């Protein structure tokens, strides 16, 4: 393929304009992937911990919904920095994740990030690869 200088500059401009949306979209996909694993870590029968962090439905002290069902993955963009954020608004989740003097830690989110580390890198690199390829055609 032979390009004029103008065409090449146009493609470079397209790459520049397309990078952030592509990374944001890929990061959202990666965050959802981690979210799914974190929910799995909180599911009885699939959790790697001695006891899944999933309260008894019949416990009168329980405030619905389950912590597992409130875990959410989102994307935050600040300038040229894109962050995938996975968390839960339940106030007691920190104590479950980090442990207390009476309860061992069950780091359901950090373990999900670690478990999905390779997939996250693949999702992000694929997004950039596809963007570059789209400008090479």
């Amino acid at each position, binding site marked *: 393929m032979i390009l004029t200088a103008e065409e090449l500059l146009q493609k470079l401009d397209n790459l520049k304009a397309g990078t952030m949306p592509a990374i944001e979209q890929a990061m959202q996909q990666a965050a959802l992937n981690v979210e799914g694993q974190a929910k799995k870590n909180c599911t009885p029968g699939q959790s790697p911990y001695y006891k899944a962090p999933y309260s008894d439905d019949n416990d009168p002290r329980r405030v619905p919904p389950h912590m597992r069902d409130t875990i959410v993955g989102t994307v935050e963009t600040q300038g040229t920095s894109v962050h995938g954020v996975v968390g839960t608004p339940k106030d007691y989740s920190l104590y479950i994740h*980090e442990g207390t*003097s009476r309860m061992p*830690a069950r780091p359901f989110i950090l373990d999900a990030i*670690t478990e999905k580390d390779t997939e996250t890198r693949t999702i992000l690199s694929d997004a950039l690869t596809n963007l570059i390829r789209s400008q090479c055609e």
Partner: protein
Amino acid sequence: MTNSTIFAGVLAALTNDSQMTTWAISFIRYKRIAPEACPVGTLIMNTERSAHRPGYNASKVRDNYPVAQVDIWATAASETFPRSQEDVDLIADRADEVLLGLTPVTGTFGWEKTSESSQFEDTTSIIHAVRRYNFRYNVTDA
């Protein structure tokens, strides 16, 4: 379950550190902590992934990737060091220096810190700092 030799090596590195000794901080395997037992440090391995190294059929070598969690426990009711969040963070920072230092625990490599946090337990007045580290070690299967 992390190799017991590796676990003991990490525990010994923390316990035998001269600064930890000066502060009278001992390290034990994680168990329930009573306020009377503070100050104390605990070690637990959260998760461990294992992968066959290329050429495993001949070498039988696997790479293991555990996550080590170091907890520092102190009570705000204490009248001596450590008795505040700053004191506990200072000890946790020292754990960073020991584990991420130039001389890795024997048999391990690739140490990096993955998270840190601090909490205060209202019911027991226990101050708690958590540090987690990724590292690797090799296992040769029989």
